[in-house]
Every structure is written in C-alpha cells, then in structure tokens.
C-alpha cells in the first residue's frame, strides 16, 4: 500500500518534505520522494494537500475499563483515539480494580486486542490499590505488558515510599510517571486558587500544591539517579523547577496538556464543571509560561489526560462534580491552534506527541522510518470545523471545547498499516 503525494512531517527523522510511503505487512517498507511510479495493482491512498504524520502517542489517558464502563470502555476510547489520530494510548491504572497486578494488565490488553483499533499500553500502579503504602508487583506487571508505573491521581504521599518506588521501578527499567500534587494542601479545592476563586466562592488549589511535589520528586530523582517523568504540569513555578533541574543535568522530563495550553481559569466563571480538572486550569501567566516552555523544549511531551465522566456526574455543582476532561479528538487540532496562534513550529509540537513520548517511555513508534510500525495519521491542515457533541466517539462528552472552531482535522488513521479511522 502506498500513501502518495502528502507532506511528510516526522520530527524523529528531521523530515519535512513531499514523500510517498510504502507499507507492507504492517511495517513501513520504504519512503521515497513524491513523483516516482507506482507498481500497478498496489492500493493507493491519495494524500495530496494533506499532512502525513507518525501516529500520535498519548502518554496519559484514562480508558476507565475495568470498572467504570459507563464513562468509557477500551473499545469506545480506542475509537475516539483513532478519530484523533492517536495510534498509541497509554492508559492509567486507576480502574476498578486498580491495575496493580498482572491479571488486570492482561485483562486490559485482551480488551484492547479485541477492540482492535489502536495500541493500548497500560501503566501499572506504583502501590497496591494506589494506596501509597505497599509497592505493587511492578516486575510481574511488566512481564504482563505494562510500560510504566504511576499512581497518577492518588500520588504517593510518603517521600520514603516514593524513593523506594523509583529505585524498585528502575530495577525493572520501568519509567515512573508522577502526578505531582500535595493532597493535604489541595484540601477541598476545586479550581485554581487566586482572586477569581475568592470571587466565585469556590475553594482554591494553590499552585504550590503542585510545585512542592515537583520539587520533591525532582530531588528524589537526583538523589537516586532514577529518571522521573512529571505529568501534566500546570504552573509557571513547576516549569521553573524543572528548568533548573534540567540545567543541572537531572533526568527529569515532563508533559502538559492541550487544555492547560489553550484555556485558563476564566472558564470557571460559568460554573460549568467541564472546566473542572486536576490540575486545575491556571491563569494567563501560567498558560503563557507553558506555551513558552513548549517552544523552548523544556516541556518534552503533550498528553491529553483524557478523563471521561458521565453527563450526570458533570451536571453536578462545580464543588461536587468529578475532575476531568476528555481530549483525544481535540489533541491534534489543539496543536494546530498553538502552531497558528503562537507561531510554534508544527514539527516541534508534533515531536511532543510522537518522538518524545516514545523516548520517555522507551517504546517503539512515534516515527516514520523504514522498518518501523506503520502507525500513520493523515491530517488535513486546511479543514475548518466546529466540534459538536455528535462528533465525539467517547462515551462521555465532558469537554469545554464543544462549540469551538478548529483548523485542521484528522482524515485517516492507520495502525500497523490498517485503516482504523477514515472520514471517507
């Protein structure tokens, strides 16, 4: 099969040119300059006027299965990911039961395999039941198929256990992903703490809730020599800590989310719980710092933190509704918006969802090279479209981006050479 005539953008190979791709047996066989003859009988995907990208890797998502299938399941989540041009979904361990043992890992992989859409790579819990007390069976889970460990939304409170977790995880070469939040300091907060939270009468979550834990985990990483990946940073202060650590040569990487790059706490004025997520939307200064962090390569990755919640949960009062926003289908359009509005090189943004997460996690994919997985996303950079609820493949619709007009739309997604989504 050939993908012909597109603009091929692949940060991993530093490539941005018109090129044709030959795919066979789920792998990329060859990449040639556009214009060559095609042997007759080959299937051809015409990509003229389109961008041909490595399939996206979303390194932070919640697929909710097992346990919360009313919010999302692996099949619906896979479909939404495919529609977003995401060919690899890294799913967090906060299912019910928690993915803290190889049986749950196997269950997730079996469900992903029968969904047959995108590659699903599970993250195992750091501690049993994400309780922060006893280390989970990281080694056995790795044999079953996890690619990293994280307690995500229930971060390890004890510095002692986090230290051991870093050392133990590195024994099995498992990356550690840390959601940095001091739960005690966050208290009953539901939005960014500041003048606006005081005005709206909503309890605040101060920036330092995140920054204190970023500091701790950076120090633990430097002390143990074990790399740590800080997920969804949301504040200018976190970025400063990570910048300083990187300058010292610390093995620290980080990601942020499309919503923290595009939205601020101002949205909370509506009291619409679709603006409620953890970490909370911050202020304009934080948002601009994050955008500059991406531009300066201080932020390695961009991940959705896709967190589906049912409508009746999100219809509750802002104080009571659960934290979370879905994000698969708006990831690439969000990157395009950053490219257009802030003049950040598209290839650099693309690296944050392809090459860089592959490197942080030590997984295959995120590039278009002869011999690599034929995970390919074809993107129409000129399509202008408005997100409606009906377009969403997730079981849940909790996103404030409904009604937004975006430029750029995924038109086809291939996983190992097989089309799993197409607008045709």
């Amino acid at each position, binding site marked *: 099969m050939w993908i012909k005539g597109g603009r091929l953008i692949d940060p991993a190979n530093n490539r941005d040119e018109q090129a044709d791709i030959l795919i066979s047996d789920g792998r990329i066989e060859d990449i040639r300059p556009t214009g060559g003859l095609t042997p007759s009988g080959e299937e051809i995907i015409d990509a003229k006027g389109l961008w041909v990208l490595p399939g996206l890797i979303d390194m932070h998502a919640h697929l909710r299965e097992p346990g919360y299938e009313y919010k999302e399941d692996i099949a619906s989540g896979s479909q939404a990911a495919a529609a977003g041009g995401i060919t690899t979904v890294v799913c967090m361990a906060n299912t019910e039961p928690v993915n803290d043992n190889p049986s749950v890992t196997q269950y997730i992989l079996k469900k992903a395999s029968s969904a047959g859409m995108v590659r699903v790579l599970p993250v195992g819990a750091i501690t049993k039941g994400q309780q922060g007390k006893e280390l989970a069976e990281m080694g056995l889970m790795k044999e079953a198929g996890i690619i990293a460990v994280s307690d995500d939304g229930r971060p390890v409170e004890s510095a002692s256990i986090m230290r051991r977790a870093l050392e133990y995880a590195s024994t099995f070469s498992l990356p550690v992903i840390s959601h940095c939040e001091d739960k005690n300091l966050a208290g009953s907060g539901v939005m960014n703490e500041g*003048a606006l939270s005081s005005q709206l009468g909503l309890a605040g979550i101060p920036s330092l809730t995140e920054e204190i834990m970023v500091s701790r985990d950076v120090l633990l990483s430097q002390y143990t020599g074990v790399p740590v990946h800080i997920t969804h940073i949301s504040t200018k202060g976190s970025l400063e800590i990570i910048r300083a650590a990187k300058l010292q040569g610390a093995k620290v990487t980080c990601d942020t989310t499309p919503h923290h790059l595009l939205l601020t706490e101002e949205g909370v004025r509506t009291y619409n719980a679709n603006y409620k997520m953890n970490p909370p939307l911050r202020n304009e200064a934080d948002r601009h710092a994050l955008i500059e962090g991406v531009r300066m390569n201080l932020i390695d990755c961009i991940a959705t933190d896709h967190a589906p919640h049912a409508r*009746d949960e999100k219809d509750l009062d*802002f104080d009571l509704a659960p934290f979370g926003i879905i994000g698969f289908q708006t990831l690439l359009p969000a990157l395009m918006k950053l490219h257009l509005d802030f003049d950040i090189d598209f290839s650099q943004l693309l690296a944050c969802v392809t090459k860089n997460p592959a490197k942080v996690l030590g997984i295959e994919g995120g590039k278009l090279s002869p011999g690599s997985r034929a995970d390919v996303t074809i993107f129409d950079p000129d399509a202008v479209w408005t997100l409606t609820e009906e377009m969403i493949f997730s079981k849940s619709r909790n996103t404030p981006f409904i009604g937004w007009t975006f430029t750029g739309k995924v038109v086809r997604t291939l996983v190992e050479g097989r089309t799993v989504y197409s607008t045709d």
Partner: protein
Amino acid sequence: MNWPHKDLIAIQDLTSEEIHTILDMSKSFKEISKRDIKKVPALRGKTVVLLFYEASTRTRLSFELAAKRLSADTMALSASGSSFAKGETIMDAALNIMAMSPDCIVIRYPYAGLPKKLAQELPCSIINAGDGTHEHPSQALLDMYSMQEHFGKLDGLHVAIVGDILHSRVARSNIYGLKKVGAHVTVVAPKTFLPVGVETWGVNIATAFDPVVSEADVIMMLRVQKERIHEQYFSGEREYAYFYGLNKKRVDKMKPDAIIMHPGPMNRGVEITHDAADGSRSIILNQVENGVAVRMTLLYLSLGGNVNVD
C-alpha cells in the same frame, strides 16, 4: 421605568443607581409592615417558591413574609423531606418545580454557582438567598438599608467587617455593594480567614481589631463556625474572642454614633458578647425588620413591578 433584571444573583451585577433604587423603594415597603393590615395586592396571583437546601430560619421566614405581604402565594421546600434527600439532582428538582409554573424561585444552596445556572436555564425569576461562599445579595442590601436608615447616607461611611471573611458570602456581597455606593470597608481577621486576592478587593486589611474599633462607623461581626477550629483556621474560642470578639471594652472605644451589626445567627461569647449584641449601639434586630422590607422590594421588582421612587 422597568427594572432591567429578571433575577438577583449577585451584588456584583447591580449598579450603584440600582442599589439606591432598591433602598429607596424599601422605605415605602417598610411602611406596609407597620400598618394594621400588613398586606398589599401587588403580587396577587404570583407564585413564589422558597427552595432552601441549607439550614436557614431568618432568611426563609423573611422572604416568606415579604411574599405574603405582597399577596403572592408561597410554597416552601427544604432539603430534608424533599426529593433532594432521595438523591434527585437539583437541576431535576428545579425543572420539576418549573413545570408547575412558579413566577419566582428564591434559592438558598450550599454550593456556589447554582442560582446563576438556574437563572440561565429557567424562564422564572431567580433570587439568590445565599449560595455557598459566593454571594448573599439580599443580606447585603438589607445591611446597606439599615446603615442608610441610621446615618442618612452610605457615601463616606467606614464599615469594618470582622471575622471569617474567607467563608462568608455576607462579607463578599457587602464589600461589593458598599464599594459601589462609596463606603470604605476594612476587613478584620486573622490571616487564615482572609481570602487569597483580598488585596484586589479595594478594602483596607487589618489583622488587629483594636485600632479599627475606634475608627469605624459600622462594626459588622461575622459568625465564626466552630468547625473551623478542627480545620485549623484558628486555635480556639478563647483566643478568638480575645483578639476578634466584640466585647464591652471594645464597644466603649467605638465612635460616639457608631453602630453594631451582625447577620445572625450569633455565637454569643465568641465573636460577640451580650453587652455588645443587646446594647444601645446594636441594630441587629432592625436588620431583621428591614430584611422583610428589602425583600418585598426585591420580589416586587423581579416580578415585573415598576421602579417607583418618590
């Protein structure tokens, strides 16, 4: 002239002219409560639903009496005994009530934001009777009415609001309103009770009560909730009363014509002593009386009454 608002959600939504209109009209409504027959037909045939999802005696009775004195029909619903207790979501409950075609819903609710959402969703008037730590506009209006009644003006008054500013919707609404009408506000509290961003509110901030006591025209004490001790906002009642309580010693230092206010319910012996609450400077019961008149105005205006200022 028509009143431009369907709803009353927040003092932040009102102009100073609108605040003055409400206060001026409340004078004539107060007169009704002094008559032998305390009822006028202004809202005859209108239905007012009192939806109280949080404990309240004063505010609920005050709104109910206000509606009845204007001849509106009232229905009261509280959290216990309603379907809310059975797990019905508040939006469902509101839509069900709406199906019965009320003209106005007065709502008290433990979380911020619901009155604003209801106002957007429902065609009837919504009056916020207090939502979480957001706003309590009718309380601020009756407080301003009471101050104006006493001093004959609001412009230039110095109002000290003392206590748990952080968790107080009464403080927020009063600060927004008093600022609009030209009063000066000083908030007095331990730092744990000062909200983040309070410096952007345009108020004086004091952590010591004594220097403020002798300066203010109005001392408004806020209820301090005992559960805040367990949440480590302060160390205990004894220390709180010592530093932030209004007692005889402090009352004696007040300006000659200064007054004492409290939105109730009071914790006697904690933020206020008997001497202060029941003494000649206290207008706490006038506040309650004026509450009915101000709420009559709010119901009357929200339900389409004409602005009518002598």
